[in-house]
């Protein structure tokens, strides 16, 4: 039996845990958050993704209570957070630098928040043990933070922020300091822990792969605004703007003018070239400027002319060999560059394509996403 899909945002009866209502935050003249309205639901793993300076960290710090909105309201579980200091919020944060107390042992760090709550000593010990088990740190309980590795420190920070069983856990670039391998492993651990504890996670990251891996929904931000909020798959397959398409993953963006044709539009992209066809639900007027966004892995590359409606010939200029994948940079007539990606399922010596080869690129009618400028 299939599990029901977790999508509280699609259910109009679901009450959001966090509500941003017309929130603006200014630092002097600089607008960090620009009239932002957004709901986040209980048990979500919500990722704020964007380049540095886009306002994602400010959003998180407002949730934690370290910044107050200049305008607008933030509600957590229906309660207006205005004037509630950080120490009175059922919200905990895992800091980018981990912010472990260097003078306390791992166990004391985890117990820190529990002691402030006035929890009886026996209960504190039990809870600390539970957290140590959850993060597999039992052996390091008595060590000081400077005596353990970066990955272990990251887990202590996580354990400490989870110890008080917050309604909401904020993670500020939690994996930024880890190397690639450990990062990947930790991403799965994070998801695992989020599922086990049922805590709502809001994660801030500039790493799109990380956001895609862990999050139930991703909000792509730019200059204080949320550009798109959707599941990772939707963000990738159905970006709503050139910015989002370009920010997430690798993409070919081709500019042209639209002419209605069949279930979609023909897009004229260069003088004397056959237009590309793309199906879409959106409507464009005749001769409207538009963009086609195409993922390189959806573009097929071949030496013989294919049957497909969207096909174009070009010359291989560059090959990026990534081991499992190869990305071909192909120059189309008129100088437009296009990327096509293939999985290297065969050994290197068997592959026919090389530099300066004339090749055909092709894709289906649904491969490209049509976007307004």
């Amino acid at each position: 039996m299939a599990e029901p899909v977790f999508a509280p945002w699609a259910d109009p009866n679901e009450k959001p845990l966090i509500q941003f209502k017309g929130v603006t935050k200014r630092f002097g003249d600089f607008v960090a958050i620009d009239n932002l309205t957004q709901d986040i639901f209980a048990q979500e793993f919500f990722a704020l993704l964007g380049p540095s300076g886009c306002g994602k960290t400010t959003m998180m710090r407002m949730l934690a209570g370290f910044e107050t909105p200049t305008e607008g309201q933030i509600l957590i579980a229906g309660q207006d957070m205005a004037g509630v200091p950080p120490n009175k919020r059922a919200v905990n944060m895992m800091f980018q630098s981990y912010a472990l107390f260097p003078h306390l042992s791992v166990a004391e760090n985890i117990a820190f928040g529990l002691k402030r709550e006035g929890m009886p000593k026996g209960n504190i010990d039990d809870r600390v043990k539970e957290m140590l088990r959850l993060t597999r740190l039992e052996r390091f309980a008595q060590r000081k933070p400077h005596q353990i590795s970066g990955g272990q420190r990251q887990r202590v920070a996580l354990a400490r922020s989870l110890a008080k069983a917050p309604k909401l856990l904020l993670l500020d670039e939690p994996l930024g300091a880890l190397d690639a391998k450990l990062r990947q492993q930790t991403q799965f651990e994070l998801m695992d822990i989020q599922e086990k504890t049922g805590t709502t996670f809001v994660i801030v990251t500039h790493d799109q792969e990380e956001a895609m891996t862990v999050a139930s929904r991703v909000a792509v931000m730019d200059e204080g605004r949320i550009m798109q909020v959707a599941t990772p798959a939707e963000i990738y397959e159905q970006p709503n703007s050139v910015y989002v398409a370009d920010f997430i993953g690798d993409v070919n963006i081709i500019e042209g003018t639209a002419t209605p044709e069949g279930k979609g539009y023909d897009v004229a992209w260069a003088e004397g070239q056959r237009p590309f066809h793309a199906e879409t639900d959106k409507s464009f007027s005749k001769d409207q400027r538009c963009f086609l966004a195409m993922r390189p892995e959806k573009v097929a590359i071949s030496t013989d002319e294919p049957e497909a409606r969207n096909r174009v010939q070009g010359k291989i200029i560059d090959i990026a060999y990534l081991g499992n994948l190869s990305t071909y940079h192909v120059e189309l007539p008129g100088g437009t560059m296009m990327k096509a990606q293939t999985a290297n399922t065969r050994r290197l010596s068997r592959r026919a394509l090389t530099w300066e080869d004339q090749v055909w690129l092709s894709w289906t009618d649904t491969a490209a996403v049509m976007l307004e400028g």
Partner: protein
Amino acid sequence: MRRFALIAVPYAWLLALFLVPFLIVFKISLSDTAIAIPPYTPTLDISGGWAAIKGFLSELDFENFVWLTEDDLYWKAYLSSVRIALISTILTLLVGYPIAYAMARAAPEWRPTLLMLVILPFWTSFLIRVYAWMGILSNEGLLNAFLLWTGLISEPLTILNTNAAVYIGIVYTYLPFMILPIYSALEKMDDSLLEAAEDLGCSRMEAFWLVTIPLSKQGIIAGCFLVFIPVVGEFVIPSLLGGSGTLMIGKVLFEEFFNNRDWPVASAVAVILLLILIIPIILFQRNEQKAREAEG
């Protein structure tokens, strides 16, 4: 060989400028006073050979140290010195910590300037600065003139030549030694630690006690020792700002040496002072080592 030469420099320095003078002082403390130049006996004459050295050694004794225990002036002076040093260390800490804290919290572009301002007094002679305090604290001084002018007092306060003046002088003089180590500890502190403490349920005040104070502990300890150790033997401040009631071992030492010309007793006083200070010096070294280990 080169490594040995490198290590030899500081050891040679210590040997020539600390150990040898100390042994000379110690030797004098075992001698008897005499009306001569130098004013003690015996003096060592190596040309007399082995017998002369033997005779010299047989004349040395500990009677000056016994004398120190018999006259209660000395142990009272030691006790009073330690007490004054303790109180003024605490006062310096109370004044210095907030200054160091404010400096560490100041905008980064201001910090070098503030640091400079703390060090700036060292550019003027210490003696002149203490004399300046005499001008400020005397009955007709600036402080009394100001207080009379504001109407807070109707008669000038007697501050100069009391212990209060000594405390003011010591706190003023030794403040940089307290501020600098505390500042350097606080400046290294990551601000996100305070945010983490607040996030975990601390009020600002609790965060200060539970995070800021423990993390500046090494700086506090270092600062306290840097003040306490020299203040115990302080001579200039008590003799210029203090009165007849201010009893400090540095002053006693000076009087024994120059007024009474009793070099052997003065040397004995110095040796005991050093022994008293060795304990806090060792503790200080331990603290420094611990701080280094915590960082490494």
